[in-house]
């Protein structure tokens, strides 16, 4: 008996090696079956948090790419959403023309921006190569930003809403009264809504959204919130001041929107000898 133990003792290293390898193989096999070794994997809280910290760090370096991807995905989603949301009235329309996508969305990044002038412009990192056209509307997740003015091959320049030359057709959300939003060149956080008749009951705190009349922006993009209403000098119109919803000092990722039927609309206006005042 003693000799057996002595023999085993002399083999102890090999026996330990074999037993450890058997444990390892048992773990490998057990882990490959669905129920096996559930404890030793990354769903474990400590290991999970370690891996999450690691991916947090590594993800940080790909943040810019991720953002780009998200923005372009958003643009395509918006297009789909708008197609779905166009709900017909109770009148029996031909659905095929109604459900056509009227607006096309693109995404881009602002590479330079100004706030301090009265004619402010944005430079966008996409141009004709990416399908950007003159006259496209520019907005971001906060609200309206501007309108494309000139396009080069790879870049384009947009007139910012903070430009005294840009009028945006908009309306009050609560009562659908429309007017034009224009920046007065004073404060980069505020703009004015023009051409709202005096009899209109405009309330402070009401949201201003785009009206969809000018065929640049689809209806319902946020412009701002009314901060003050007063009877101004003009005998016909109210003096409405609004806080812009877009923070122009932080505009970086933007969407561009194109009305695919704007040519048809324009030719219709010309035919009927109207000027689209919006």
């Amino acid at each position: 008996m003693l000799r057996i133990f002595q023999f085993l003792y002399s083999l102890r290293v090999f026996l330990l090696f074999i037993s450890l390898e058997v444990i390892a193989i048992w773990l490998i096999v057990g882990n490959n079956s669905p129920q096996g070794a559930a404890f030793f994997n990354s769903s474990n809280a400590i290991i999970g948090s370690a891996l999450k910290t690691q991916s947090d760090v590594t993800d940080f370096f790909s943040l810019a790419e991720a953002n780009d991807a998200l923005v372009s995905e958003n643009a395509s989603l918006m297009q789909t959403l708008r197609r779905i949301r166009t709900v017909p009235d109770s009148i029996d329309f031909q659905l095929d023309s109604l459900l056509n996508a009227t607006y096309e969305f693109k995404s881009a990044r602002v590479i330079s921006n100004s706030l301090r002038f009265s004619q402010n412009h944005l430079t966008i990192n996409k141009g004709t190569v990416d399908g950007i056209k003159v006259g496209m509307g520019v907005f971001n997740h906060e609200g309206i930003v501007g309108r494309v003015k000139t396009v080069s091959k790879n870049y384009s320049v947009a007139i910012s809403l903070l430009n005294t030359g840009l009028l945006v057709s908009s309306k009050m959300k609560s009562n659908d009264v429309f007017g034009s939003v224009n920046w007065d060149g004073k404060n980069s956080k505020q703009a004015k809504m023009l051409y709202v008749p005096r009899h209109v009951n405009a309330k402070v705190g009401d949201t201003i959204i785009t009206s969809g009349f000018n065929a640049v922006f689809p209806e319902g993009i946020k412009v701002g919130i009314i901060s003050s209403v007063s009877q101004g000098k003009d005998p016909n119109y109210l003096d409405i001041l609004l806080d812009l919803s877009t923070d122009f000092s932080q505009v970086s990722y933007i969407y561009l929107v194109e009305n695919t039927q704007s040519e048809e609309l324009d030719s219709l206006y010309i035919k009927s000898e109207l000027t689209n005042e919006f």
Partner: protein
Amino acid sequence: MSFKSLVTFIVLGLIQILLLKNLALFGIAFCFLYLISILNFPTAIPTIPLLLISFILGLTIDVFYETIGIHALSATFLAFLRPFWLKALSPSGGYDDTSNPTIAEMGIGWYISYAWPLVFCFCLLFFSADQWGTGRFLNALNKSFFSSTFTVLLAIIVQLIFFKRRRDI
């Protein structure tokens, strides 16, 4: 095991988990830098503690790699082979009790002939276990060759840069 080598041990493990886990040159050359800490234990260390340490280290790495058991299997195998290989490579006078099988003490040529075959065995077992049942042994051989070369290369670089040459005696 001194405090310094314990720190090295932990740092190498962390580097393996956090950085090298996602690294694979051309999709075939993986790096198992944590093997340095097994390879560089003093020559006089008894085999049983070495086996246990390797097994636990391998299991720890496994948990993060989501390959439960495979690293443990291969690392234990490496630790088992190490004493035999050390004996085969022993210089004419034998090893000192305090000597370490590192570049600083034994030189680059000896270190390559010591580390590369061991790491290759590790890799061969690792990739065979990894691809078990797929019947792509040639692929495992290919990966093992490049991975072990890459690992030893990086191990040499790391030692030359970070491990100070011992100046006493």
